[in-house]
C-alpha cells in the first residue's frame, strides 16, 4: 500500500523533523512580537501556523504546519514504521525502547496540556488562604449574604459574559451589556474620544470611561476585564447599570429581593479543600548586591477533613506536593510580606521522568552496539600485532 509505505518511511521522519525545526525556530523568534502564551497557542498547539516573515512590514504570512499536526504525524510515522518493520530481537530492542520513550513523552505533553492546570496563590504573612486564582482568566461573581458570616457565591465564568446574556439569580436577573475582555479605564474627565462613555448609573463606575484594548501577551501583565451589567428585578423595572472590573478593588453593592448583594469581576478562583497559612516569608540577597540568594516560605497546612495541621517549608527547587497539587515558590510582593505560589495540577508529571530514562538507556544501548561493531571491524582490518 503506497500510503502506508510513505507513512512508515524514514524519508517522512526526516521531513517532519525538518518542519519541526522550522516551526520551533519561527516560534522562538516570533515570541519577541507576540509573547510566549500567544505563540504557544498559535504555533505549538495549532494545526497550521502563520509565519509573519517581516512583522509590521507589508508581507503576507507563510503557512507552516503547526505543533499539533506535526505531533500527530510524527506519532503516526513512528507507529507505522515500527509496525512495518517490527521484529523482536536484541538488535532492535534498543530502537524500540527509544521510540517508546519518545512516544510516551509526546503523549505526556498532550495529556498535560489537556489535564494540567496552573494557578497562583498569594498569601500575606500571618494570613490564611484556601483558594488559588487563574492569572489569565476572570469571573463575574454575585454574592448573597446568608447571615452568620455565610455567603452564597454565584460565579459566572468569563466565557459566558456575552453581550445581551441574562442570568436569573432568584428574585432578579443580571444582564450583560458590554463585555471588554481587556480594557483601559480612566476617569471621564481624562478620557479621550476613543473611550466609550460610561453607561453606569450606580456604583464606582459612574465617573469612568472604558476603552477596549487587545489581550495582554506579556507574561507579567494581566488583562483588565470590564463589563456593564444591569440589575432587573423579576417583573419589575430596571434598577440601574453598574460598571464592573477587576481594576476596581472590592465589590459593589446593590439592593434586590430584600437583601444587600455584592458583585464584582475578579480573577477566577479555584477553591481547595484545605487552607495554607503563611507563617513567614524570607528573602535574602547577597551582601552588597540585589542578587537574590534565596526565597523561602514557612507555611502551615490546615485540613479540616483529615485534621492535618503541620508546618512545611517551600523554597526554590523544593516545592510542596499536597492534595494532587504542587506548590512552587514563584514570587513575592508588598515589600517581601506577600508570598506568591504557583499552584499546578499535572496528573502526568511522572511521564517525562520515565520516558527520559527509557530514551537515555535505549540510546546508550544502541550506540554501544555501534561502537562495539566499529571496534571489531577495525580489529579485523588492522589485526593487533
Amino acid at each position, binding site marked *: 500500500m503506497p500510503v502506508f509505505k510513505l507513512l512508515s518511511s524514514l524519508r517522512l521522519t526526516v521531513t517532519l523533523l525538518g518542519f519541526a525545526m522550522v516551526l520551533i525556530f519561527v516560534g522562538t523568534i516570533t515570541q519577541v512580537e507576540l509573547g510566549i502564551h500567544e505563540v504557544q497557542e498559535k504555533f505549538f498547539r495549532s494545526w497550521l501556523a502563520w509565519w509573519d516573515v517581516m512583522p509590521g512590514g507589508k508581507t503576507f504570512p507563510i503557512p507552516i504546519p503547526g505543533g499539533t499536526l506535526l505531533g500527530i504525524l510524527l506519532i503516526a510515522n513512528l507507529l507505522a514504521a515500527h509496525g512495518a518493520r517490527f521484529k523482536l530481537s536484541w538488535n532492535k530492542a534498543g530502537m524500540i525502547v527509544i521510540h517508546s520513550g519518545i512516544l510516551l513523552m509526546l503523549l505526556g505533553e498532550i495529556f498535560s496540556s489537556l489535564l494540567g492546570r496552573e494557578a497562583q496563590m498569594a498569601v500575606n504573612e500571618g494570613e490564611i488562604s484556601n483558594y488559588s486564582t487563574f492569572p489569565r482568566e476572570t469571573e463575574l461573581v454575585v454574592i448573597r449574604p446568608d447571615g452568620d458570616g455565610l455567603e452564597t457565591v454565584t460565579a459566572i465564568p468569563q466565557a459566558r459574559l456575552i453581550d445581551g446574556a441574562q442570568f436569573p439569580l432568584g428574585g432578579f436577573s443580571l444582564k450583560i451589556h458590554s463585555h471588554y475582555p481587556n480594557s483601559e479605564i480612566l476617569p471621564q474627565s481624562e478620557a479621550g474620544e476613543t473611550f466609550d462613555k460610561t453607561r453606569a448609573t450606580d456604583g464606582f463606575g459612574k465617573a469612568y470611561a472604558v476603552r477596549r484594548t487587545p489581550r495582554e501577551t506579556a507574561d507579567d501583565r494581566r488583562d483588565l476585564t470590564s463589563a456593564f451589567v444591569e440589575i432587573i428585578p423579576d417583573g419589575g423595572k430596571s434598577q440601574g447599570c453598574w460598571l464592573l472590573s477587576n481594576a476596581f478593588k472590592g465589590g459593589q453593592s446593590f439592593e434586590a429581593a430584600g437583601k444587600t448583594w455584592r458583585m464584582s469581576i475578579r480573577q477566577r478562583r479555584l477553591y481547595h479543600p484545605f487552607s495554607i497559612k503563611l507563617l513567614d516569608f524570607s528573602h535574602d540577597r547577597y551582601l552588597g548586591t540585589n542578587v537574590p540568594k534565596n526565597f523561602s516560605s514557612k507555611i502551615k497546612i490546615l485540613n479540616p477533613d483529615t485534621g492535618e495541621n503541620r508546618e512545611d517549608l517551600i523554597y*526554590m527547587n523544593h516545592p510542596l506536593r499536597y492534595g494532587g497539587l504542587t506548590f512552587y515558590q514563584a514570587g513575592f510582593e508588598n515589600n517581601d510580606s506577600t508570598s506568591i505560589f504557583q499552584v499546578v495540577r499535572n496528573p502526568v508529571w511522572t511521564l517525562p521522568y520515565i520516558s527520559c530514562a527509557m530514551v537515555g538507556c535505549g*540510546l546508550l544501548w544502541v550506540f554501544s552496539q555501534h561502537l562495539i561493531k566499529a571496534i571489531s571491524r577495525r580489529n579485523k582490518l588492522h589485526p593487533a600485532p
Partner: protein
Amino acid sequence: MSTLRKITAWLIPALCLLFIASAVFNATRPATGLDFKNFGTLPVVSNGRVQPLDSLARNALLSIHGKQRIPGDGAPATPAAWLAELTFKPALADTRKIFLIHHDDLLGLTKLTRGEEKSYSYAQLLPAFPALQPEARRIGATKSQTWSPYENALMLLTRNLTLYNQLKHALALPGQDQLESEFNIFLTHVSEALVEVGKQDRGGDFNQSAIDNASSRMRTVADWAPMTEVYTTPSGDGADGWRKLPDSLIDSIDKRALHPATLAYARIGDAYRTMDATAFNSAIKDYRTWLRENRSDHLKKASAETLFNGIAPFYLCMVLYVVAFLCAIVSWLWQGRTLRQAAFRVLLIGLTLHTIGLGTRMMLEGRPPVTNLYSSAIFIGWGAIILSTVLELFHRNAIGTAVASVVGFATLLIAHHLSLSGDTLEMMRAVLDTNFWLATHVVVITLGYSATFLAGTIAIIYLLRRPFAHIPKSTAASLRGMVYGVICFATLASFVGTVLGGIWADQSWGRFWGWDPKENGALLIVIWNAMILHARWGGMVRERGMMVMAVFGNIVTSWSWFGTNMLGIGLHSYGFTDAAFLWLSAFMASQLFIMTLGLIRERGPKPPLNSLELLG
C-alpha cells in the same frame, strides 16, 4: 624510529612545559619594593562573594578598559598596584587614560576629541558629568532591550564611572592623607563627645564645640558609607558578616579600638603615599597574620584565587593549542609520525592545564563546572578536547588533535571576550542555586554542545580538504567514523540534557516544557542530530551529505548557545550593530559558505553505496 625523531617528538612538549613553568615562576616570585602581590591577596567581599583585591582590580579594569594593562609611562604595572593608586592616590589615578569611548555620539556629548587612543581619563571626563547624568537617567527609565548602540555605550560608561568611584572609596576616603591618625582622631573625638553628651543629658556643664566637631566627623564617615560597595572588614560569620570600612569605623566607637582590618588599610595607605616599602609590606604581613588566625578560610581562598589569576591557565592553554594545531597540520605534509606525536603530547599538556584551571574554578566557587556563559565556554572546549583525545587514540592520524586544538582555542577565545563583562565567579541567583541540577542537566547539555561542535569541526576539515586534495579512502573512512560516532554521542547528551532541563523546570516552576527560547534552542540541537542519524540510516545522505549536515549543526548549536540570549536585540534594526550579534552572524555565514563548498560534486564516477558505509 630514529633517536633524533624520538627526541624531536619530546622536544616540543618539553618546551611547552618550560613555558608553563616560567609562567608559574613569574606568578609565585616574591615581589621587590612595594609588595603588590601580597596586597592583591587580601580578601574583601564584593559582588556578594569573598574575593581577593587582585580579582576586584582585574575585573574592574577589564570592564572599564577592556584589558588588564594601563597605558602610559610610570603607570601601575599590575591591576592590584592600580587599585592601590586609585584608592590611596586618587588624584594621580584620575589622570590615567583608561575609559574607552568608541561611539562618536557619546564622544560628542562629552565634548572630547578623538585622539590617537580611544581612552580617556577620569579627569578628562569630569567636565562632561552634567551632560552625562540626565542622559543616563533618561535611558535608565527605559527597557534595556530597546537601547540603541549609543544608549548602550552611554550606560556602560556610566556604570564604569560608578564602579571606578566605588573602588576609589573602598579602602580610604579621598582627601584624607594621614589615615591612621585621622581614624584615631575620629575615635578620640567621638569618644570625648559621647562623654560630653552624657554630661548634657545629666544637665551638667558640657563642651558644645566638642560635640559639634565630633558630629561633623560622624557625618563625613556616614556620607562615605554609601559611596562604596566593597566590604573590607570581617566582622560576623561567613561572607555575610563583612562590613564596609566606614561602617567598621562607626562600629569601633563601641569597642574603643580600631578593627585590625581598618587599622591595616590605614597603615597600608599611609605607607603607599610615602612610598615606604618597609612599612607597606609589614602592614600587609601583619594583617595577613591576623587573617590567618581569624579568617584562615577566606585568606586561603583569596590567595588561591590570586595565584590562579596570576598564572592565567586558560591563556597558557590557548598558546599550547595553537602549537598543537600547527604541529598537527604540518604532520599531514611532513614528518608525519614525529610531529603527530608531538602535537598529541602538547594537546595533553594543554588538556591537563585546562582541567586544573577548571578544577580550581570549581573549588573556588564550590560549584559544578558550568555556572554562567563564561564557564560554559571553558567547559565546551574541555569536553570537546576529551572526546577528540579518545578519537585520536582510536584513529592516530592527528585529526583528533587538530580538531581538539581548534575547538579548544576558539572556545577559550570566546570565554576571554565574555570575561570582559565582569566577575566570572559571580554568585548564583536563587533559582539556579542547586548543585544537583547544575551538575546533571547543565553539564550534560554542555557536553551535547561540545560534541555537536566537534562533529561540525571534523566535518569542516573533511569539506575544506576535499577541494585541494583527494582524500584517501582510509582517511575518508576514519573521518566518517569520527563524525558519525560523535553525532551519536551528541544525540545522547543533548537529549538527556534537554529532558533533565525539563525535569528541573518541573521541579522549580511546575512545568516540564514551556517553549521558551533557551529550551527551544536545546530541542533544535536534539532534533537536528536525530535528523542526521535518520537521514543517514535511510540512505538519504551519504558521506558528503552527512558532513554538510554536521556543519549545519554548528549553526544550530551557536544559535542555542548565544542566539537565544540575543533575542530582543537582534531582531530589530537597532540591534544589528551589537558586536556579539555581528560575530554570531559572521560565524553562521562562514558555516553556510563551507556547506556550499560541500555541495559541489566531485568529478568522477559515483562510488557505490554499500552496507558497510551505511553503518559509518
